[in-house]
């Protein structure tokens, strides 16, 4: 199916292509994201299952013995799933309070922390662990509240948060384009992680716009999506030439080969 037809009607479908063969796992994207989106730091961040990391970089290895071992990294933002029929994002469809929504124009899965009741149903629904619950009040000790970005409201305890593809940047770009009388161009709207990546492993843009680089790259047969078979129909494409990395991106039966299995 052609790239644009994978998604429902709507002007844009913002998405990413992440080149795993370029990612060096430096964490630049994660930190840039946290500073852009006011993600706080708890005093104990080693409790990873309660730590908030919108853009998490997973380290994986091929499981082979020395010296055939290799590691690779999966940077994992929110993948902004669309689901297979209409806007049936795993998390959006389950939120009882409409605190998360699928924007039909951009394909971005939004999150409204001030509306979230903290039931965590969406956390359970997301297979990517892209959703995080604020188990704690984030401490902002003296002074550390100063670098907070005014474009993004810091969250309170007891709500769920996640990557929004830096939606505030899109709004800013739209405002700017509106005032300038132009359109939002490819480079006007880029996420913080994309800008930060020193290897240029992340490409961001509109998957529906054939002029955008992301739309061109995502067509490559080397591109695939995480857990594509579940039918989440997300918008973050990964790319690698390494078979073992690709195999780790989805579940396969023993006799199946990646790339030859259709999404369910």
């Amino acid at each position, binding site marked *: 199916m052609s790239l644009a037809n994978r998604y429902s009607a709507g002007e844009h479908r913002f998405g990413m292509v992440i080149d795993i063969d370029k990612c060096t796992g430096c964490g630049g994207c994660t930190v840039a994201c946290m500073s852009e989106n006011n993600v706080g730091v708890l005093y104990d961040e080693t409790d990873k299952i*309660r730590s908030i990391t919108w853009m998490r970089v*997973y380290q994986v290895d091929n499981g082979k013995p020395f010296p055939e071992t290799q590691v690779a990294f999966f940077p994992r933002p929110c993948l902004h799933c669309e689901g297979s029929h209409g806007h049936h994002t795993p998390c959006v469809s389950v939120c009882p*309070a*409409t605190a998360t929504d699928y924007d039909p124009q951009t394909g971005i899965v939004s999150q409204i922390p001030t509306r979230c009741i903290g039931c965590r149903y969406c956390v359970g629904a997301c297979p990517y662990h892209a959703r*995080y619950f604020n188990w704690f009040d984030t401490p902002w000790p003296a002074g550390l509240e100063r670098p907070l970005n005014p474009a993004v409201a810091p969250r*309170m305890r007891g*709500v769920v948060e996640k990557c929004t593809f830096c939606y505030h940047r899109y709004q800013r770009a739209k405002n700017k384009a509106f005032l300038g009388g132009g359109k939002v161009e490819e480079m006007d709207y880029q996420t913080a992680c994309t800008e930060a990546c020193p290897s240029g492993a992340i490409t961001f843009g509109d998957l529906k716009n054939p002029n955008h680089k992301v739309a061109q790259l995502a067509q490559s047969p080397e591109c695939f999506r995480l857990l594509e078979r*579940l039918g989440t129909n997300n918008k973050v494409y990964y790319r690698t030439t390494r078979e073992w990395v690709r195999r780790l991106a989805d*579940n396969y039966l023993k006799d199946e080969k990646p790339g030859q299995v259709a999404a369910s």
Partner: protein
Amino acid sequence: MDDSKFWPQGVTRCKPGAFIAWMVVCLGLLGWAGLSAFLCIFKGLNQTNMNDYFAFGVWIVVDLAIIALGAGAFFTGFMTYVLRRDELKNIINAAVIIGFICYSGAILMLGIDIGQPARGWFGFWHANVHSMLTEVMFCITTYLIVLIVEFIPLILENRQINKVPDLAFFAHHLHRIMIVFAATGTFLSFFHQGSLGGMFGVLYARPFAYRAGIVIWPWTFFLFILSAIASGPSFTTLIVMLTEKVSGRKLTTHKVKMLMGKISAYLLSFYLVLKIADTLYWANVTLPKMGVTFGDLYAGGPYGTYLVWLELGLFGVVPALLLLQRRVRESYGLMALAMVLNCCGAVMNRFVFTIQPLAIPVLPFEKFVGYLPSWQEWGISAGVIAYGLIVFSLAYRYLPVFPQEVELNKG
């Protein structure tokens, strides 16, 4: 201190001292729950051992379990008022009280379980009607209103309260139109029992929970309804039996209990046939499409296939076969045992659907994460049980719950 003038007409109850002692024990548990609730609300849910992998913990298991077991209220109500099985009138009061306890207890628990209790009502205010959880919230709350309406006449029938003419009239008139409430309750309860199942069945990105279905309802929707109405009557009967044992008084005829057992038996058998079919379809069709095998899902952590045998075998087929036999139902002890197994099956089923799907990693490079509830979580869970014990004990002591009690304990 003599409270006998509040007792129902013509019955005796235990001495106030013993009752107070029992209440103190329950209040102790409630105190534990109170402290836990205080900590969870003022310090946040970091007081629990839940985390981003185990977004749901023991609370949700208890919630789902007691709502399933509380289904005795709606189904007995349905049989009594809508299908006019008059012999069930002898147990309907108990069923309503248990239903009330389970539903109100579940809602209290959910109030602490959500991260923003003050925003709990946003589920109504900003309802997302596509969410099974929204349906659950609406139906549970509305059904709780129904249960309260059903419970009110019973309270008003207390010997002293009934002396007030306004209230006596009101109770009488509520009774007259109880069929309307019972029917509404049946409708509401039917849907939310189903939606609770649907909540997990729709998680299409969680292979362990996901089930195919029809239109918007996954098979779990129907299975949850069935398992709830199969175990609910058993649970109601068990509570009555327990009360009989504790009080040493006969409260209903064995015939009534046998009828409840029979209802359970048929429903449970029907449920099991469908459940086993569903499991086979899921294991052989649904899962392979997602690239997973049945074995994969039981390979890691403490969750082995023994859980399946336990849930469907010991807690499923065994009680179904037992209850189907008249001889078993005729035996007080054997029927009780079968009903206990049946209830365990429902609880187990709820556990399997809440905890296990979260424990099993979906991303191939994710790891199994363990979870054991904290003392605060146990505290709240115990508190809900204590709350139930208190309400039921008070109701039994002061309200004419069992119409046959006077008759059965003559001489």
